[in-house]
């Protein structure tokens, strides 16, 4: 992109510069970091001394800037660097931030904003009210297009292997949209209830609130929305997708198979699941005890699939999947899990009374007879399956349950809470012991144990070592071995890995036979439910692409933004209110006798309270409310930043100023006393698009009766290292005085000042007019403000012109006429600190008196308040001066570039 001028910033100085250059015929690029042009002026109520409406003056310029044929505008963009091109021009790199909105489609209707579930302070209303993560900056924004504020993906959502938008459904619940929260989870998987109970919740491990008092109960919130939906009398009536003419066979009905079937059916595929077991659900049904996951919940989850036409054939074991292709299925997904138990390979393992956890749990879950009453049970293993087996045995009436684990308690692969719950139910743990052999006649009677000294070798491989001298014997009637699980894939006649898992392309999940895909534990080995769900989603995505004839790449699948840095999230606030995490809902019984759930569901009040602790890490929660609400389909969350390279003959810096942070004068109580506000906040309260319905006290919404202004807050003040007069504070305060007295005719206005600087055409008259209207001016610097119980403020000052002495006065509200500071970011745009600043860190001008607007860099000019504080007329004048210099430079640049005519003699 080549331009005659790059204008950085689109406040009044930037717009004026661009318009004048554009009118002269130069090609101009304006780069504005906000989503609208207009800068600070558009946010003002009126301008002084004419009291013209700021919007009325600004919006024509804003519109002209955007629509000028010679001006291109990049809003929501930042100049990252500017460097000389060595030929008198400059090369700039611009980052165009994604708005996540298709601007061509967006009509500015604000329906996305109205629907958005995340509230953040509205910087365009001086943080006095909320805006949404999806928002239009302000009513007069140009362009009037929405933007979605995304800092990245929230850690909870990012860490979910299933791709579930955890932050999204938390935000939905917080807004009372439980059905919509349920639907959001359905976008990933139909297993809402199962995951709400049996997921090990990696989202919670990564919750940023965990760095404070404790993580949100994200899994329990999922259970809450599932129980709420499934508990309704009238089941949902989903719309059946139209068949697209293709059929997919899914072999296996565990989390991967069910999820893939769900995703494919929603895309219009005819899907049938073939399941070898008598009931569908895979390991959910056969491996997880009912006290953790009742069968009814699995049935409810599976009903989501059957409701949209997915057929399930149980009791059918598929051998060679090629047969399915021959039978007319267009593609096959193998998701058969890991149902083959791993043996211990110790002496006596074949005796009667030794079984595996998989067989045991499956029999119990399917309601087959299992004789356990009065038996001494020994469970071998340290994982979650072993814990499940031990706790199940306890419920079936075992006289005692001992559990042997090679690992010490701290190293056991089972989750800590599972171990604690097992102990609480009376299971005796023998950690750090291995099985040497089983003894007895035909039937097992004892187990010989030996001390395990080390489980893994230095490379982390399983290689247990034992102290052969340390041994003990445990009596047992029944041994349940939970030594691992493997895939049972021989019958498929496909390539496998050494551990018998299916060999696939890890990105596409395609086997060597193109029409056959595989996913879940049959590919990865034993994993968490969410990982299997994630595999199922990926497989469905790839099968769809395969059957559509598209390239099998991951584009469009889980193309996440980067994860938000937790520290960055925590730095957004100075202080955090402590909010206690929810207490555990696990109800433990030392002698459980049935399979009633050990955890209760959250109440509605608990669920809402829990969601209120969410920090909205990513800002946008990805709840998709905006997607649902937008009538123009303009929301595009797949947008990404773009880097744009720009060549320009000249640069005009119109980066404006910063306002003094009022809390840096702690004696005035800003940020501490609600009724102390800044001048900019009062400007917003007086503007037609104000945050409140009138000028009100932020402390309690009362119409103030008497208002004080404190001038020179943060300017002409060595205590905050700002000796400069900020020039505009006196006059904007006088402007406020008049507007307040107009808006609140009964209100008293008092100004505490050092001296009033009313230099400019009509300024002194404007000041006198305020006095004539009744504004009272008291000379003397304010030392301190304190707050009364009713929110009124006591202002302590020295009365210089009156009776003298220290005086205290009481006001309803105090406005701090904050000063101005340089915008330091501008210097960082130039490599090697090439841009010179003046003694006060504004952009330095080579000669302010004779050569305004010219910086130390040839071809770089400064316009408006970036070179020092200016009011609006002076900013416009200064921009004109800078533009004249820029135009001259561009002409010189062009002349230099043209080839010189040959002089012949």
């Amino acid at each position, binding site marked *: 992109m080549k331009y005659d001028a790059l204008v950085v910033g689109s406040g009044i100085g930037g717009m004026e510069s661009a318009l004048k250059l554009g009118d002269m015929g130069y090609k101009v690029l304006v780069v504005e970091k906000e989503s609208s042009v207009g800068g600070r002026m558009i946010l003002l109520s009126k301008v002084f001394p004419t009291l013209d409406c700021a919007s009325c003056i600004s919006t024509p310029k804003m519109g002209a800037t955007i629509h000028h044929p010679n001006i291109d505008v990049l809003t929501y963009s930042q100049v990252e660097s500017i460097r000389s091109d060595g030929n008198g021009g400059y090369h700039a790199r611009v980052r165009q931030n994604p708005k996540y909105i298709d601007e061509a489609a967006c009509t500015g209707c604000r329906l996305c*904003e*109205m629907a958005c*579930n*995340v*509230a*953040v*302070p509205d910087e365009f209303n001086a*943080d*006095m*009210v*909320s805006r*949404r993560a999806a928002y239009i900056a302000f009513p007069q924004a140009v362009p009037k297009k929405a933007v979605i504020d995304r800092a990245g993906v929230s850690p909870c959502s990012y860490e979910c292997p299933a791709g579930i938008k955890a932050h999204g459904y938390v*935000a939905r619940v*917080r*807004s*009372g949209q439980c059905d919509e929260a349920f639907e959001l989870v359905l976008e990933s998987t139909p297993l809402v209830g199962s995951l709400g109970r049996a997921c090990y919740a990696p989202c919670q491990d990564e919750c940023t609130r965990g760095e404070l008092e404790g993580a949100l109960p994200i899994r329990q919130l999922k259970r809450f929305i599932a129980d709420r939906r499934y508990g309704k009398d009238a089941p949902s009536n989903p719309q059946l997708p139209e068949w697209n003419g293709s059929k997919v066979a899914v072999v296996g009905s565990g989390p991967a198979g069910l999820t893939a079937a769900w995703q494919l059916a929603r895309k219009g595929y005819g899907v049938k699941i073939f399941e070898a077991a008598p009931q569908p659900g895979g390991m959910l049904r056969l491996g997880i005890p009912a006290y953790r996951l009742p069968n009814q919940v699995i049935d409810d989850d599976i009903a989501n699939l059957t409701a949209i036409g997915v057929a399930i054939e149980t009791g059918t074991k598929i051998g060679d999947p090629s047969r399915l292709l021959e039978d007319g299925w267009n593609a096959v997904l193998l998701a058969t899990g890991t149902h083959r138990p791993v043996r211990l390979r110790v002496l006596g393992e074949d005796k009667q009374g030794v079984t595996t956890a998989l067989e045991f749990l499956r029999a119990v879950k399917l309601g087959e007879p299992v004789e356990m009453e009065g038996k001494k049970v020994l469970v071998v293993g340290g994982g979650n399956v072993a814990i499940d087996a031990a706790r199940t045995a306890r419920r079936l009436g075992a006289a005692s349950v001992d559990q042997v684990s090679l690992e010490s308690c701290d190293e056991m692969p089972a989750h800590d809470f599972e171990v604690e719950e097992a102990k609480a139910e009376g299971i005796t743990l023998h950690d750090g012991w291995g099985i040497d052999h089983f003894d007895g006649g035909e039937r097992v009677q004892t187990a010989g144990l030996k001390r395990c000294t080390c489980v893994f070798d230095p490379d982390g491989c399983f290689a247990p070592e034992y102290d052969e001298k340390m041994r003990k014997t445990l009596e047992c009637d029944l041994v349940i071995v939970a030594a691992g699980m493997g895939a049972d894939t021989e019958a498929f006649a496909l390539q496998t890995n050494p551990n018998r898992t299916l060999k696939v392309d890890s990105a596409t999940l395609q086997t060597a036979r193109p029409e056959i895909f595989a996913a879940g534990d049959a590919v990865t080995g034993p994993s968490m439910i969410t990982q299997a769900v994630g595999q199922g989603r990926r497989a469905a995505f790839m099968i769809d692409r395969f059957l559509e004839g598209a390239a099998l790449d991951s584009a469009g699948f889980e193309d996440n933004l980067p994860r938000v840095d937790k520290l960055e999230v925590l730095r*957004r*606030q*100075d*202080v*955090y*209110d402590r909010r206690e995490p929810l207490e555990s809902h696990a109800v433990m019984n030392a002698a459980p006798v049935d399979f009633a759930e050990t955890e209760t569901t959250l109440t509605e009040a608990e669920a*809402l309270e829990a*969601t*209120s602790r*969410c*920090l*909205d890490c990513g800002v946008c929660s990805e709840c998709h409310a905006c997607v649902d609400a937008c009538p123009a389909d303009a929301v595009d969350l797949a947008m990404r930043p773009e880097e744009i390279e720009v060549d320009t003959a000249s640069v005009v810096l119109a980066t404006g100023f910063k306002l003094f*942070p009022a*809390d*840096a004068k*702690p004696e005035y109580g800003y*940020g*501490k006393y*609600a009724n102390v506000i800044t001048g900019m906040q009062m400007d917003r309260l007086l503007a037609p698009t104000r*945050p*409140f*319905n*009138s000028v*009100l006290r*932020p*402390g*309690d*919404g*009362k*119409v*103030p*009766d008497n208002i004080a202004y404190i001038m020179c807050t943060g300017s002409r003040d060595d205590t*905050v*290292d700002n000796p400069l007069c900020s020039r505009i504070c006196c006059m904007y305060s006088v402007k406020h005085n008049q507007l307040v007295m107009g808006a609140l005719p009964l209100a008293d206005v008092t100004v505490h000042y050092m001296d009033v600087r009313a230099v400019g055409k009509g300024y002194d008259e404007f000041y006198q007019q305020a006095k004539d209207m009744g504004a009272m001016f008291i000379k003397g610097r304010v030392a301190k403000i304190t707050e009364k119980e009713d*929110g009124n403020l006591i202002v302590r000052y020295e009365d210089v012109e009156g009776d003298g002495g220290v005086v205290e006065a009481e006001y309803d509200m105090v406005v701090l006429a904050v000063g101005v*500071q*340089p915008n*330091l970011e501008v*210097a960082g745009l130039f490599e090697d*600190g090439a841009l010179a*600043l003046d*003694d006060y*860190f504004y952009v330095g001008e080579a000669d302010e008196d004779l050569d305004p607007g010219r910086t130390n860099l040839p071809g770089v000019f400064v316009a408006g308040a970036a070179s020092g504080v200016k009011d609006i007329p002076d900013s416009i004048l200064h921009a004109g001066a800078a533009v004249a210099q820029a135009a001259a430079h561009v002409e010189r640049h062009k002349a230099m570039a043209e080839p010189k005519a040959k002089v012949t003699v």
Partner: protein
Amino acid sequence: MNDTNATNRNRSAQDAREPRTNRDVREIIRDEHFMRSRILDALAEGPLTIPEIATAIAQPTHEVVFWVMGMRKYGYVAEIKEATDEGYFQYQTVPREQ
């Protein structure tokens, strides 16, 4: 003078700030969605002023201002035109299209 001095200047100004005793504005505003149903419930019986809403939901008045003004901005509540004799506006619920 150079950039470092300027940075130090700003930093010293920052350091001079007293710790806030109120909740962070970002945190208060984040609660708007959570508080919305409580406020709407409080207004179900009729219009209330900010202090009356604060009493009804047992929350600080200055925080209620943020929530009510946010709800006003997004069309959940609206003020009754005239303020009370005590100088407070009353707010009432607004029917919303679903």
